[in-house]
């Protein structure tokens, strides 16, 4: 526990001393903010039109919920993280290998799992900080809609994003453990998590049972229900098992380096 904490603190500090985190967080907020603005105005205009129509023709027209805006925002957030996470995780092991600090970690009385968990949670912390910044948009929505925002789907969306984060961070860590080149680590991670995200597109061209299998593997398929406020156990299990699998593979890679090199 103490060892894990030591690694965790070092990693988090390292994230905050490097400019990468600030740049990524800044770009992230600008992009999310911009899409939020667009969809919010669109929603506002549509609602106004609907209200005017209802007044003019004296009929009732169903109004959309302000949660539609949040739903749209989350699909952007999740997609953006697919681009950002490879840049966060690329350094985790590749940098240690390049600097030779891997020798310090591997010859100190600290287990591979302790190092692994310290690193994983440090990246997850950075991810959480970025995700937490988006709470501000929800607060704006709540105020502007006069408190008509339903927090349930929003909380479940955050839970979904966190689960997705764990899974893609562990994949990124695995690729970082394979190489000492950070660019290679980032590129392979990006290819893999994008592939998993877009895999669902190929299900259209396949017949069952293959199409079902492909849908099951795709991360975007499992994300969907969280954004509409539904927490399905099978989806939670999907993300957690993916995270554990990624961590497990990373551990194996690191341990086997003792024999391979």
């Amino acid at each position, binding site marked *: 526990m*103490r*060892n894990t904490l*030591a*690694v965790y603190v*070092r990693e988090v*500090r*390292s994230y905050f*001393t*490097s400019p990468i985190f600030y740049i990524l967080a800044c770009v992230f907020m600008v992009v999310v903010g911009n899409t939020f603005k667009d969809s919010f105005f669109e929603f506002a205009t549509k609602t106004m039109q609907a209200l005017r129509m209802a007044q003019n023709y004296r009929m009732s027209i169903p109004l959309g919920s302000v949660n539609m805006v949040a739903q749209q925002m989350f699909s952007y957030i999740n997609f953006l993280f697919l681009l950002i996470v490879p840049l966060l995780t690329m350094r985790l092991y590749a940098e240690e290998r390049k*600097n*030779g*600090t*891997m*020798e*310090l*970690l*591997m*010859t*100190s*009385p*600290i*287990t591979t799992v302790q190092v692994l968990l310290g690193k994983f949670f440090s990246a997850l912390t950075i991810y959480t900080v970025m995700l937490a910044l988006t709470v501000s948009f929800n607060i704006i929505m709540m105020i502007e809609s006069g408190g008509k925002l339903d927090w349930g789907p929003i909380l479940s969306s955050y839970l979904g994003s966190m689960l997705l984060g764990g899974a893609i961070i562990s994949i990124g860590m695995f690729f970082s453990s394979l190489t000492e080149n950070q660019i290679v680590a980032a590129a392979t991670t990006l290819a893999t998590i994008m592939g998993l995200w877009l895999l669902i597109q190929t299900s259209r061209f396949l017949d069952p049972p293959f199409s079902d299998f492909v849908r099951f593997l795709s991360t975007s398929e499992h994300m969907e229900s969280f954004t509409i406020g539904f927490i399905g156990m099978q989806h939670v299990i999907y993300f957690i098992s993916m995270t554990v699998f990624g961590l497990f593979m990373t551990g194996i890679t690191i341990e086997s380096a*003792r*024999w391979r*090199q």
Partner: protein
Amino acid sequence: MIEVTDLTKYYGTKLALDRVSFSVRKGEVLGFLGPNGAGKSTAMKIITCFLSPTEGSVKVDGLDVVENSLEVRKRIGYLPENPPLYTDMTVKNYLEFAAKIKGVSSKKLRESVNTVVEKCGLTKYYRAYCNSLSKGYRQRVGIAQAMIHEPQVLILDEPTIGLDPIQIVEIRNLIKTFGGDHTVVLSTHILPEVDMTCERVIIINDGKVVAEDSTKNLRARVPEQESFMVEVRGEVNGLLGKVEQIPGVRSVTSQPAREGISAFKVEASNDMDVRPLVARTVIGENMELLQLRDLTMTLEDIFIKVTLN
């Protein structure tokens, strides 16, 4: 303290260590000597648990490096070939981190950091970032990191490489102070270093131990004969014959002359010192003796001789 038995290591199909066996006593300073690529670093990486052996066993303080890896690592301080520094940390933060992952208790943390900082002469750079340090100071931080948890065994891989002459002397003196309390294994390909810091030497070449002895014995081992160079002014044609007749002299070979100075090499058995007799003969011939230089083998010669065979 360290017991290496039939240690073999393959990198893929390439043989890096071939049934290497040796042992290191408690408190001893052992030098690991060998040309680049001989397998010095590999052996050290296995002792420190960074790599696993293909065959054979390594025991530190009676504990096997594979089975009791964590326990062994608690007892070992290791300075790899490149000091393992986190460039984005200050010396202080770095040493505190190293102390934590090496199991130094929070109570003793500050004290251990202060001790190594003082010992390694890092007080001035305590708050500096590791990437701003010169090579010599990086090396010192590397050594400080290795000894922060007061390990019984210190493994130093080429601790003086890339340092300037003054720093080399300082680091060597630092290493000398470790002997007695710590068991030290250091690798190098610089011979005088071994001569100055180590009590015992293992020469390793092509993955095999080719010689193992104390520096003194090793030096005494090779030359069964003494040889020295004599320089005189003028021609030496008549002199050589006379020197050859001195009892104990085995051979006299004339060396290329330069600007009126002649030189010849004398080889004699080492049970008697023939140098005074040679000097007397030269003066007896009314010639000026300019130099009489000992050609006893240095560790360098021994090294070349053992590694070439």
